């Protein structure tokens, strides 16, 4: 029997990786310097759609310091194409996506030619000497116009701008009733169109890649979230045997889904390194990053809610147009489809239909961005729940309460076919209302309305759930995703009793080294500082599925837990041998094997580690190692939830929105490290608030990205946010031995509708029922002048 004494799990340990991350004294990809390393610069398309009629790199090649210069045409046969791992329908239109454009460019920022030189400066200077002539083609930007008959085409050879239409219908799937009937006979139907503006992930560390060809081995350092997937796909795309490719994601400075990609730049660097037989580095500038790293969101959401007069929902129909951009990235088509399972949210909805059409436009391709499909879904449902509340004359909390799944109804199979594991929406909401001082703020709101105050107060409610722990491999298979969803962990017991953990997750700011150490410290009874967590190098961590979708702890944490149990199981006969007792009489607590009933006599795991190292006296047939591997494939997603409340003051004279108080009560199951959780919630809320108020990637009518620098792409700073009041309720995940769920995306998912609901709530007396995001001062001011904006 194993009794774990939990000292580390639950304690707010400071993150062990932070000293090196914060000071920057660590190995970022940009810090990799190799003998003879060359530098690559990329010439990008200045136009959104054009035929390349002429490219000449010869003048660039003559310049001092330049080693090579080439265009897409020079490498057309060998560069391969970028992968899309999620063909969501059988007939999905999947255009070729060459890393370097060959005959045509389809968005501003698309790579056209490269220069390789002995210094970065020489490479950049030489870009000006590359000649390219473009013949303009019509630019497709508007999603609805793109689908019209006779529309101009992004990919003329495909004959359509539609990539796919994906449908889920509860009537057809047998998970509920048919939605048309529900809508036809409804007492109340609310119909809205919401727009998810385009966002840019804007990770702190720009993308960077170094490719080193030594012998027939290729080592790729990349600022990526997905070293394992990258290795597999580089091998597949370039035809390099997998064992000849090593990928290293050293410390990576943020991703938010933006580095969940196999990028054109990675393949271009690979092609250049292979051509030249020399290590090549490419590090993007911020301007390049904003225009070429994949974007997120960008959808039109048509949503219809049917309900009874008492506020009970009877049906939900969702129709999406999702902007793919010019190409399909790694999981581009799947992102909106993750949302399909989330529009029904925490509510009991008898009939549901979801339909999503992916549309090509002449813009940078979109793909995962923190929450990926789930924030969009949560936004639409939580916005329309407020509209329902107004329509039927209920408080927004009450209308939710009348529809949500009650704590005693878990596990609960939803109309979208998922089985929610656990939760208590009432508990989280009650706590959030207390912390906000909801009733008092409602009174203040009434006073301000009565007195015609120029500053109005609004309260936004957002109750959410999300699917974390991506994902059961079978479910992924049924959704036509190209890979599984398992995760791995290995434990290596060193002879001195220290522990090396190898994880298949790939942290890029999440603090896995700390949380994993806490788990191992408790499970193996070793000191927190005696655990080293290794990750991101396919040579040490040869197997894994990386970090995204709030999966690392929810899936990788179970693999880690299981690996720990295996180590203990292996050590037990060895300890028994040393203690001269029957293994069945041993118990393991606090890192010691002790004979039950005899607490004084024990052997530690370190004693066992040393014993297998010497291997002088082991029981017969025992393999001299304590090391263990585990791979875990989840049986279900996990479903954290929570209630976020935002009180916002709206200056009706200027349109300025000031968040007065923000409360986040999250239920993410058991918590390994409250400090890390707090950080995830804060960062997530900041990004969600940023979508509500600040960020917008805007193209002009010619397809130029207007918000191409941080002057125009408005990221908030800490000074723009308020202190976030956080608290937690705890509904342990029944499928996880540690009870944890996942928290990486929660804040982003919950906060955007909370903020917009608050602003709309403040302006209800002005006839406002919606404001397009981001709710800029001008939009809010216009809304306050009379209705929508």
């Amino acid at each position: 029997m194993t009794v774990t004494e939990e000292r580390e799990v639950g304690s707010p340990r400071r993150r062990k990786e932070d000293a090196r991350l914060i000071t920057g004294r660590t190995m970022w990809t940009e810090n990799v310097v190799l003998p003879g390393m060359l530098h690559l610069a990329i010439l990008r398309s200045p136009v959104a759609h054009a035929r390349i009629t002429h490219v000449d790199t010869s003048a660039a090649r003559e310049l001092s310091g330049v080693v090579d210069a080439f265009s897409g045409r020079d490498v057309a046969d060998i560069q391969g194409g970028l992968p899309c791992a999620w063909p969501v329908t059988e007939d999905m239109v999947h255009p070729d996506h060459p890393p370097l454009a060959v005959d045509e460019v389809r968005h501003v920022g698309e790579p056209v030619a490269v220069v390789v030189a002995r210094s970065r400066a020489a490479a950049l200077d030489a870009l000006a000497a590359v000649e390219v002539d473009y013949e303009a083609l019509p630019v497709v930007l508007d999603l609805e116009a793109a689908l019209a008959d006779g529309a101009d085409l992004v990919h003329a050879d495909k004959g359509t701008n539609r990539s796919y239409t994906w449908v889920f219908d509860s009537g057809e799937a047998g998970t509920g009733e048919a939605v048309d009937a529900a809508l036809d006979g409804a007492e109340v139907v609310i119909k809205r169109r919401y727009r998810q503006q385009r966002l840019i992930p804007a990770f702190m560390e720009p993308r960077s890649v170094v490719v080193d060809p030594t012998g027939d081995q290729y080592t790729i350092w990349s600022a990526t979230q997905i070293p394992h997937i990258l290795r597999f796909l580089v091998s597949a795309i370039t035809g390099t045997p997998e064992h000849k490719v090593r990928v290293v994601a050293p410390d990576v400075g943020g991703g938010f889904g933006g580095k969940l990609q196999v990028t054109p730049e990675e393949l271009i660097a690979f092609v250049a390194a292979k051509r030249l037989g020399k290590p090549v580095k490419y590090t993007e500038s911020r301007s390049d990053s904003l225009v070429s790293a994949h974007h997120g969101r960008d959808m039109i959401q048509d949503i219809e809610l049917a309900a009874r007069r008492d506020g009970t929902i009877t049906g939900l129909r969702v129709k999406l147009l999702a902007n793919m951009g010019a190409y399909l990235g790694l999981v581009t088509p799947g992102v909106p489809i993750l949302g399909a399972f989330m529009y029904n949210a925490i509510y009991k909805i008898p009939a549901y239909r979801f339909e999503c059409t992916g549309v090509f436009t002449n813009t940078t391709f979109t793909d995962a961005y923190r929450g990926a499909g789930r924030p969009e879904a949560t936004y639409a449902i939580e916005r329309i729940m407020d509209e329902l509340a107004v329509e039927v004359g209920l408080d927004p909390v009450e209308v939710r309460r009348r529809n949500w799944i009650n704590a005693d109804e878990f596990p609960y199979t939803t109309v979208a076919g998922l089985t929610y594991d656990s939760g208590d929406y009432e508990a989280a909401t009650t706590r959030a209302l207390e912390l906000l001082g909801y009733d008092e703020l409602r009174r203040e709101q009434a006073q301000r309305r009565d007195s015609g105050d120029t500053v109005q107060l609004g309260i936004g409610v957002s109750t959410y759930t999300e699917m974390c722990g991506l994902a059961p491999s079978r479910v992924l298979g049924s959704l036509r995703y190209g890979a599984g969803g398992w995760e791995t962990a290995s434990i290596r017991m060193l002879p001195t009793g220290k522990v090396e953990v190898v994880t298949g997750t790939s942290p890029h700011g999440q603090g896995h080294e700390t949380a994993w150490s806490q788990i191992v410290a408790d499970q193996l009874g070793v000191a927190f500082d005696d655990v080293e967590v290794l990750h991101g190098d396919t040579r040490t961590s040869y197997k894994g599925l990386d970090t995204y979708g709030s999966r690392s702890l929810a899936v990788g944490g179970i693999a880690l837990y299981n690996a720990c149990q295996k180590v203990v199981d292996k050590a037990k006969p060895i300890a028994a041998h040393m203690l001269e007792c029957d293994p069945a009489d041993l118990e393991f607590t606090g890192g010691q094997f002790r004979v039950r009933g005899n607490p004084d006599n024990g052997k530690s795991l370190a004693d066992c580690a040393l014993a297998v190292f010497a291997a002088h006296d082991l029981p017969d047939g025992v393999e001299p190692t304590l090391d263990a591997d585990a791979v875990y494939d989840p049986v279900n997603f996990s479903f954290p939830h929570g209630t976020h409340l935002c009180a916002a003051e709206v200056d009706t004279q200027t349109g300025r929105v000031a968040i007065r108080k923000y409360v986040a009560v999250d239920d993410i199951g058991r918590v390994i490290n409250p400090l890390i959780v707090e950080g995830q919630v804060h960062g997530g809320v900041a990004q969600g608030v940023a979508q509500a108020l600040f960020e917008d990637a805007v193209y002009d009518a010619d397809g130029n990205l207007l918000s191409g620098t941080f002057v125009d792409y408005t990221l908030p700073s800490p000074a723009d946010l308020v202190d976030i009041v956080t608290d937690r309720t705890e509904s342990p995940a029944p499928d996880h031995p540690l009870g944890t769920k996942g928290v990486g995306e929660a804040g982003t998912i919950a906060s955007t509708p909370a903020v917009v609901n608050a602003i709309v709530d403040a302006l209800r007396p002005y006839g406002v029922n919606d404001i397009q995001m981001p709710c800029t001062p001008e939009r809010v001011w216009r809304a306050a002048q009379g209705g929508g904006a």
Partner: protein
Amino acid sequence: MIPAPFDYARPSTVEEAVAALADEDAKVLAGGQSLIPLLRLRLAAPTVLVDLAGLDALRGVHSDGDDLVIGAMTTHASVLADPLVNRYAPLLAQATGTVADRQVRHRGTLGGSLAHADPAGDLPAVAVALDATLEIAGAGGRRGVPAADFFVDYLTTALEPGEVLTSIRLPKRGEGWSTRYEKFNRTAQGWAIVGVAAAVRRENGGIAEARVALTNMGTRPVRAAAVESALTGASADAETVRAAAGHAAEGAEPTGDLSASAEYRSHLARVLTERAILAALGQAHAA
């Protein structure tokens, strides 16, 4: 990105700086907070950068009779901390406190801000409101240009090629004057969508004199003359101020961009002018 190649000069006197600027494509480098981004984006590619960092004479604040003289190379942070500025030109100190963030304020200079003449920059309107004189040295000698004439157009000033802005001269505004810079931006450290620099002198409970200049209401700072005349000699009550502020956008030609339309800018100019004047008068605005 990396700037295009350039030569670098670091003079130690104004005369040497002027000489180094003889090259037609030479450019002055002060704090670099506006220029270096332009170089990195390769929107500017001067042949020579003449770095004024070695010109200690252009740094610091001193009193000269009825005037305050601020060296062009004085950083925003030094301006903010300076007791003379806080006493005689608190409007400049307050507006400088809204410029960017701490890091930028420790490198960016007052002279650089004025010479750069960004319509969204906060300090040009302040210089106009305070009736500053910009002191300039060039091959032909020294001259002074009133702020009202210095700002010519978008990123364009009265500085001729080869000239250096050496200092900013401000009439001291002590007794009776009160001031306010009201800035409206989308993020706390962002550029102004609109800004209003207001200075009023009170006498016998009324307003004896008013100076109001607007940021980002055109390609250069705009004097709100109609507001000034409506306030001069008027009583200092909220109604009067509101009525006067209603004229704020008259004569301005704001442009529209990603963060605001021209119409909204005009609206903001009126609201912020009212707020700036009320705040200068020590009255909270109505909201």
